[in-house]
């Protein structure tokens, strides 16, 4: 350790630390708002009502709906978000032409970098009554569907479009794992006369299982985040029963209707549950896959 270096290290960290304290640490004290009947005029001196916000939360019918929607949509995204990238990665890996593979990857990673505002604009146009999808349905003799106003379709549209957007990017990890498989395993299989399918079934897929398990475990911690940006830009009051999730509800009730105390309470509950889930999932990942982030 070099004494004279210490103060320089502290100095390097200083600006960032100040900003973290202001914008991440201090807001944490704001959780007291969850226990108050918050009034913006009175600020933090608003009347204290203890757990009333929370009991109210458990009474209203809305909470069951948003909680169910959040879990349903999230789980759907997690499952599709693993199956599609894995399949894509395994299939892409089978190809031999490196240049073609690179080209496909470039194209397929692109949607991940577009914002949901943009994509929602595109989707609203494509799924509208006069949009390309309904025209195609009509061409096949079907009847037009108002996709974004249908509670039956909406969750699946959310899951499907999210998968479309991120499957390429999600495949990066699996492609890296596939590249790391020992080639001598394949050579040994060749000597034993294995077909391509057998090689896939007995070497490729089993080698991916640890990565798949790891990523699904880590997603558990995130299950209460159903994707605010996407849902906010695609939803409308008609589909609240199937599409309203915790974050969108907190936004409407908290920022739009200014029920700060109640919304903070919901947010706090979500953070607590989320935290417990993250700790559990990281513990599991550490135990079974030796995974550490630092």
């Amino acid at each position, binding site marked *: 350790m070099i004494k004279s270096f210490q103060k*320089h290290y502290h100095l390097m960290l200083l600006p960032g630390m100040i900003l973290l304290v202001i914008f991440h640490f201090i807001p944490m004290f*704001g959780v007291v708002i969850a226990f108050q009947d918050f009034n913006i005029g009175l600020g933090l001196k608003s009347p204290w009502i203890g757990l009333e916000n929370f009991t109210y939360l458990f009474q209203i019918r809305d909470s069951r709906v948003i909680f169910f929607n959040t879990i349903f949509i999230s789980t759907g995204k997690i499952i599709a978000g693993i199956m599609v990238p894995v399949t894509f990665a395994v299939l892409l890996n089978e190809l031999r032409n490196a240049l073609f593979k690179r080209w496909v990857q470039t194209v397929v990673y692109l*949607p991940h970098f577009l*914002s949901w*505002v943009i994509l929602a604009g595109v989707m609203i146009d494509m799924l509208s009554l006069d949009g390309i999808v309904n025209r195609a349905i009509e061409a096949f003799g079907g009847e037009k569907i108002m996709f974004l106003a249908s509670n039956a379709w909406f969750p699946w549209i959310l899951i499907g479009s999210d998968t479309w957007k991120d499957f390429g990017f999600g495949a*990066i990890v699996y492609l890296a794992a596939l590249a790391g498989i020992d080639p001598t395993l394949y050579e040994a299989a060749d000597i034993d006369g294995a077909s391509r399918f057998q090689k896939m079934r007995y070497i490729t897929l089993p080698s991916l299982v640890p990565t798949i398990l790891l990523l699904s475990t880590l997603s558990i911690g995130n299950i209460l985040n159903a994707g605010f940006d996407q849902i906010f830009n*695609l939803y409308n009051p008609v589909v609240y029963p199937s599409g309203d999730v915790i974050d969108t509800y907190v936004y409407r009730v908290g920022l739009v209707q200014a029920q*700060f105390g109640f919304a903070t309470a919901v*947010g706090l509950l979500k953070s607590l549950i989320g935290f417990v889930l993250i700790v559990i999932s990281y513990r599991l990942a550490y135990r079974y896959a030796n995974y*550490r982030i630092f």
Partner: protein
Amino acid sequence: MVEDRTLPSRLWNGFLIVLMILISFMSLAPIIHTAAVSLSNMSAAAGGWVTFWPIGFNIESYRKIIDDPNFMNAFMVSVRRVLLGGTINFVLTVMMAYPLSRSPKEFTARNYYMWFVLFTMLFSGGIIPLYLVVKHLGLFNTLWALVLPGAVPVFNVILLMNFFRNLPKELSEAGLIDGAGPWYMLMRIFIPLSLPALATVTLFSVVGHWNAFFDGLIYMRSEENYPLQTFIQQLMVQLPPEYLDSTNAELLEKMSNKTLNAAKIMVSMIPILLVYPFLQRYFIHGIMLGSVKE
């Protein structure tokens, strides 16, 4: 390399190539469709006849955009935000990642800082306390509200920190022998060696700033301060045509100009589309570089 030249194998290969081309097309299809709509004439677009090629090619909608001061203004707000926010993110990420990458022997207080940083990543006060903090700091309606809360991109800091850790010890030791202090080491040794990781981190930060719409929505009080995505979100995504009734005739007229909307979407996508191919080859490598090596 031994290649499998049997007929079933080559059929499978051919099938895979076709499949991959289809998947690539699917990833691009919505974008191509939107581009086609933006270049078509208004009635064809409104009728939903445009698929992937413009009907009645014209660039009227793009002309209208350039003449629309509100749109161009929002565009410039986003540009300023990306430049300011991206720079701040970059400087802070580098300045924080370096000390944190030093071992506790070299930097005695390292672990305390690390725990704090992780703490802010796991816990958060929620949007409402953050909203109130930003309000009390008087940042409403300024560019700083978009740039300061997210000034420290903790995930990127950890990514870069891991990368720094994986650089050979010999480098810093050689620097020490030659009398380098921490700043010199950071600027003249570590940064030049980290270009792929820096490119990755910059790409994520820039894309994040360009695509952000929600902070613009809650912190800005007047339309002239809206960044581009928020501007688009307010205009288009809020009220899709089918949900309006005839009382909103003027609004309806604005909205149903599908060509204009499509052109606005394309213009917002352009910076990402331009930057992406250049940085793409860095970030695949860069993401995996940030992982912990055993």
